[in-house]
């Protein structure tokens, strides 16, 4: 079953991960039948937005199966708007990525909303690191404020033994029809995918791996073992992203 990975990263991490080069990524594509992936720059998220976005653009130009999200940082308003205008009109950039935890700016802050509003003219998706019940609530507010925007809740609310984050995300996606649940994480509680399919529908769930931070096989295992139909698995692994991003 081919895969489109809707949540990938390019760059280094501050952990002992050696498999971070383009060649390592291509190895993972071959190993796991990943056809296409949409990357954001780890450097842009955790350090320098402009440097990271520029490095990602260079990578995308070399690999037809690689696509990108431009990263914006709400602490840098004018620079973020420039980054959006520099990249989001390009064919290989499919959306805007914002990471409230690293920037310290909630996605529903006035600054974040101004950036999202600025990006709206490009009619491309917004992917938000969405963690915990508060993170879900914040992203839901943005989805409500921008009803014509497709909003991807990365990590579908996050992990935790009681499932509070991902269950909140499922409830939120049930009320906001312009939201998508992206599934990756480190602690993948059983039943989260089945419950999401039952309550939201498989058509609004996207496979993402979080590579090169997380092993695609780790997240694939969750979909493979989920008690849902093969058709739903194919939607999650491939068809939903293909339709959403027209790739």
């Amino acid at each position, binding site marked *: 079953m081919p895969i489109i990975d809707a949540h990938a990263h390019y760059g280094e*991490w501050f*952990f*002992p*991960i*050696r*498999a971070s080069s383009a060649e*390592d990524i291509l190895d*993972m594509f071959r*190993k*796991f039948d990943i056809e296409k992936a949409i990357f954001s720059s780890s450097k842009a998220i955790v350090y320098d937005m402009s440097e990271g976005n520029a490095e990602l653009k260079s990578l995308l130009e070399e690999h037809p199966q690689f696509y990108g999200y431009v990263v914006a940082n709400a602490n840098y308003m004018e620079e973020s708007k420039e980054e959006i205008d520099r990249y989001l009109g390009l064919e290989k950039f499919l959306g805007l990525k914002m990471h409230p935890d690293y920037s310290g700016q909630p996605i529903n802050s006035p600054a974040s909303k101004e950036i999202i509003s600025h990006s709206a003219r490009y009619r491309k998706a917004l992917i938000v690191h969405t963690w915990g019940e508060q993170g879900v609530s914040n992203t839901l507010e943005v989805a409500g404020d921008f009803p014509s925007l497709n909003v991807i809740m990365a990590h579908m609310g996050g992990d935790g*033994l*009681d*499932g509070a984050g991902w*269950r909140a995300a499922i409830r939120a996606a049930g009320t906001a029809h312009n939201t998508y649940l992206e599934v990756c994480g*480190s*602690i*993948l*509680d*059983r*039943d989260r995918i089945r419950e999401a399919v039952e309550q939201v529908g498989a058509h609004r769930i996207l496979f993402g791996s979080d*590579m*090169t*931070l*997380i*092993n*695609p*096989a*780790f*997240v*694939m*295992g*969750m979909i*493979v*073992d*989920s008690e849902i139909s093969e058709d739903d698995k194919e939607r999650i692994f491939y068809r939903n992203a293909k339709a959403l991003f027209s790739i």
Partner: protein
Amino acid sequence: MSHEIVDSNTFFGAFPRRKLDISKEKLFATMRGHGVRCALTLSTKGIFYDYVQGNAETLKECASEVTLMPVATIDPRKYCGEEGEVESIGKGFSLFRLFPDLQSWPLEYAPFLKFLQELNYVRRPLMIAANACGMATRIAQLAKGLDIPVILTSIGYWTLSEVILLMRENRNISVETHLLDSPDAIEVLVREVGASRLIFGSGSPFTYFSTAFLPVEHASISEDEKELILGGNIRRILGGQPCP
């Protein structure tokens, strides 16, 4: 190549924090569905309620199922260090497992320190969660000089550098694999400390079996190394106790 899988990290019982079927039947279905030969397991009653009753339930349920190998636990919040208690509990069990993550007790904790002394006396391996940065370091310091294998669980990308360093310096430390989630975590550990120090576990039925299994199955390591990780190492640590 199919491997004989021993799953070192499984549970059965009840779970209070959300509706989730972690019954023995569910565990068996998971084992059957993935070709697991046998599993080390314990009742969650011993984690969330009472370790004496939990250990009794673990022994009872495993006695009737030859594919289940019982794991003992104590809860340091209740354990008062009675002389001989660990030795008494240990009868019928080949390994102890502790849950500072789920029970919220610190490692600098008199009941835990006393337990380590007692455990060293009865020579049983210890499996213990080290899910946050610094926990593995403290466990290694506290276990220094003990003559027992220590298996760290819940190690992910955020604690990987810590355990690599500790495993280089402490030959008795191994890592259970279910949260080794970075793209090349298995390969990095095999290269840095050797395949003999990795113990396969899934966390079933709390989590998805394949989440733990596929990274090992797809790792760029030899089939012999996979064989060790998926079962050989835990058999060696348990003294070659046979799986049925």
